[in-house]
C-alpha cells in the first residue's frame, strides 16, 4: 500500500476503467461523475415539472369552469401552425439524440452538425411562434385593455353567449394561459438555444468524446423535456375546438 506512488493513482484513478480522462477531483470514477450529473439534471427537471405543472393545473381548473369559452377561444388558434411546431420540435429531439450518440460512438465530427440542426429546428419553432403571436395581436386576442373577442360565425357567437353570457371574459383567461404557458415555454427554448451555442463552442475545441460527453447529454435531457411540455401544450391549447369547425 505504502509503495503505491501518488502519481500512479492520479493518472489512472483507483479502480477506474482505462482511458485518457479523469473525473473531477470529488469523483472516484467517470461513471460516478456521469451518474451525478444525470441525477442533478433530473432533479432540476423535477422542479420544471412543478413549474409547468402549476400552469397546467390552472389551465385544467379554468377549463373545467368555463368549457364553452375555452373551446371558442381555442378554435381561434391556428392548429396547423401548432401541429407544424410540434413536428419541428420532434425533429429537433431526434437531431439532439443523434448529436449525443455521435459523441458516444466517437464520430466527433458529427456532433456540431447535429447540434446546428437542432438549433435550426428550434429557431423555426420560434419563428412560427412569432407569426402566431403577431396574429393574436392583430386580432385583439391579447389579454388586457385591447382585448376584444369577436367570432366570425354569428351563430357560434350566439350559442356561446347563450351557454355562457360572460364567455368573452372567460376566453380572456384562456388567452392569458396561452401566452404565459407558450411564452415561458419559448423562453425555455431560447435558453436552450444559448446552451446549444455554447456546446458548439466546446465541441469545436474537442472537449467531448466517447469517454466524456456529460454536457451534451444533460443539455439533451433539458431539450427533450421542453419537447415533452410542448407535446402536452399542443392538444390542450390548440385542439379543444378543432371538432367544431
Amino acid at each position, binding site marked *: 500500500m505504502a509503495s503505491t506512488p501518488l502519481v500512479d493513482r492520479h493518472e489512472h484513478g483507483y479502480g477506474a*476503467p482505462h*482511458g485518457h480522462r479523469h473525473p473531477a477531483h470529488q469523483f472516484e470514477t467517470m*461513471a460516478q461523475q*456521469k*451518474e451525478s450529473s*444525470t*441525477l442533478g439534471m*433530473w*432533479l432540476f*427537471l*423535477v422542479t420544471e*415539472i*412543478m413549474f409547468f*405543472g*402549476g400552469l*397546467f*393545473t390552472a389551465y*385544467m*381548473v379554468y377549463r*373545467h*369552469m368555463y368549457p364553452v369559452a375555452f373551446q371558442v377561444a381555442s378554435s381561434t388558434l391556428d*392548429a396547423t401552425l401548432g*401541429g407544424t411546431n*410540434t*413536428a419541428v420540435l*420532434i*425533429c429537433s*429531439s*431526434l437531431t*439532439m*439524440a*443523434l448529436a449525443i*450518440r455521435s459523441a*458516444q*460512438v*466517437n464520430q466527433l465530427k458529427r456532433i456540431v452538425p447535429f447540434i446546428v440542426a437542432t438549433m435550426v429546428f428550434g429557431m423555426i419553432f420560434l419563428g412560427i411562434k412569432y407569426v402566431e403571436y403577431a396574429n393574436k395581436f392583430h386580432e385583439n386576442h391579447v389579454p388586457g385593455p385591447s382585448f376584444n373577442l369577436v367570432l366570425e360565425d354569428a351563430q357560434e357567437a350566439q350559442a356561446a353567449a347563450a351557454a355562457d353570457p360572460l364567455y368573452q371574459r372567460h376566453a380572456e383567461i384562456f388567452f392569458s394561459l396561452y401566452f404565459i404557458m407558450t411564452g415561458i415555454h419559448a423562453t425555455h427554448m431560447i435558453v436552450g438555444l444559448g446552451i446549444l451555442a455554447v456546446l458548439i463552442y466546446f465541441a469545436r475545441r474537442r472537449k467531448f468524446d*466517447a*469517454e466524456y460527453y456529460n454536457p451534451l*447529454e444533460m443539455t*439533451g*435531457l433539458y431539450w*427533450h*423535456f421542453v*419537447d*415533452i411540455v410542448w*407535446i*402536452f401544450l*399542443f*392538444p*390542450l391549447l390548440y*385542439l379543444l375546438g*378543432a*371538432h*367544431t369547425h
Partner: protein
Amino acid sequence: MAEHHQHPITPVRTYVFVWLALLVGTVLTYVFARSDFGWANTPIALVIAVTKALLVLYFFMELRHSTRMTVLTAVAGFFWLILMLSTFMMDYGTRMAVVLPVPGK
C-alpha cells in the same frame, strides 16, 4: 471503445423509429381532434400525448439505460404532478350547486 461506456448505445434505427412514431402520434392527435367524439375527445388526445411523452422519456432521454435512482427521480416528479392534478379535480370537480330541502315542507 465499447468498454468505456456505462450502458449500451442506442442504434440510429431505434431513434428513427421513435421519431416516426412521434410524428404519427402528432398526426393522429390532429385527425382525432377534428372529429367529434363527445366526452372522449380529451381522453384520446391525452392518451396519445402521454404515449409520446413516454417514448421521449424512455428512448430519447435514455431512461431505459438509466440507474434506478434516476428513474425513481423522474417517476417521483410525474407522480407529484398526478397528485396535483387529481387532488385539484377532487375539489373543483365536486363543486356543484346544491339545493337543500327546506325544513317543514
